[in-house]
């Protein structure tokens, strides 16, 4: 064996990944070549030191607790309505029934999508508040927040000034919802933080105006060609009114 081949094998042999025959040839080479023997020793020493000296970081307790909580949140999510049995039944019952079933099936898909999105929104809100990563751009100035978000998205979300209603803009971030990056506005009223997810309105999409999940309220409104999804521990009435006011204000401009 040549040194060039040995050098290539030393790591794999040290990792227990060299084929038996190769390992054997390497061993014979190391017995006769001082340079390669030194290389092999250096490799083994490095590996031993890495394992002995590199800190292994265990997950912090808070993260552990939060992850458990997250799984529990997912568990609390409403189950999707079965849609194919409807459809199959429709075919059997004839054309008219099929049409009816198609509508019902579509509604079921919408219901499921909306439930998913609401769960995602709550999860994202919880994650952001607990992880203290609510805000990527901190500003009470809508003219700072809006361009920051527009620069990072393929749409430009309206950022209404709601101070007259007692809601202070705190900042914004880009979050993920429904597999897409979405503008998230963060408002505050008294001790309540409110995440508002703003995304272009989807066709055939009418989420329920209000949902409650794990103690968080999710309010929906439409306006200015956008979907407005507000999530907070603020009371349901107040949150629904806020979501409507946001959408209304944005539509006025």
């Amino acid at each position: 064996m040549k040194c060039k081949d040995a050098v290539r094998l030393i790591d794999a042999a040290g990792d227990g990944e060299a084929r038996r025959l190769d390992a054997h040839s390497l061993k014979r080479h190391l017995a006769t070549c001082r340079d390669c023997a030194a290389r092999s020793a250096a490799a083994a020493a490095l590996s031993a030191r890495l394992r002995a000296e590199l800190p292994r970081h265990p997950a912090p307790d808070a993260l552990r607790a939060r992850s458990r909580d997250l799984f529990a949140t997912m568990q609390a999510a409403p189950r999707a309505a079965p849609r194919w049995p409807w459809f199959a039944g429709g075919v059997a019952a004839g054309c008219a029934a099929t049409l009816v079933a198609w509508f019902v099936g579509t509604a079921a898909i919408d219901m499921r999508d909306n439930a998913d999105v609401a769960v995602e929104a709550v999860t994202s809100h919880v994650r952001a508040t607990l992880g203290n990563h609510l805000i990527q751009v901190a500003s009470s100035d809508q003219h700072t927040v809006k361009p920051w978000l527009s620069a990072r998205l393929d749409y430009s979300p309206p950022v209404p000034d709601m101070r007259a209603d007692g809601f202070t803009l705190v900042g914004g971030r880009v979050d993920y919802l429904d597999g897409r990056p979405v503008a998230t506005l963060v408002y505050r009223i008294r001790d309540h933080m409110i995440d508002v997810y703003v995304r272009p309105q989807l066709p055939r999409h009418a989420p329920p105006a209000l949902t409650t999940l794990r103690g968080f309220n999710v309010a929906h409104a439409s306006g200015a060609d956008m979907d407005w999804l507000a999530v907070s521990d603020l009371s349901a009435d107040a949150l629904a009114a806020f979501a409507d006011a946001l959408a209304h204000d944005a539509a006025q401009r």
Partner: protein
Amino acid sequence: MHDNGGSDPRRFEALVMPHLDAGYNLARWLTRDVHDAEDVVQDACVRAIRYAATLRRDDARAWFLAIVRNAFYDWLARNRPAEVVHDDDAIDAAVDDAAVDPARAAERIADLRDLADAVAALPLQFREVLILRELEELSYKEIARVAAIPVGTVMSRLARARALLRRSPLLSVVTRPMTGSGR
């Protein structure tokens, strides 16, 4: 789009929680930051539920580590886009293991006071395979799956990571300047 397939979330808890330490350790070494690592792992937990269908029963740890790694790269693109480097040819050229005098390499390792700092300073692509190998003790095949690269690439990146460490006092020469906080 992301059907849970009727799976029980409690199953995820049982699947993921035992590997939370490994996931956090990887995220911690990749982000080099306590809070960022937490964010990445939290995101990975959410994704774990969505990617349930891709789980191979025998291999929950590599599966979760792959999710953590993906979550990390998405996080990186969003938060530190400057650190996303695709070109490792330059580093390749700078590190020719055969050119390193073995005796001097051994000396350098002995000299190296804080190995952890040297590892943290390694370019990302090398750091991740090294951590997966030395700390998580994954096989080449598992690393290939986690990092979504061929086994041959795992081997060459590992070799380069180690060569970089062996010439560690020179590490700064081939490492890009660090941005942001890190450690």
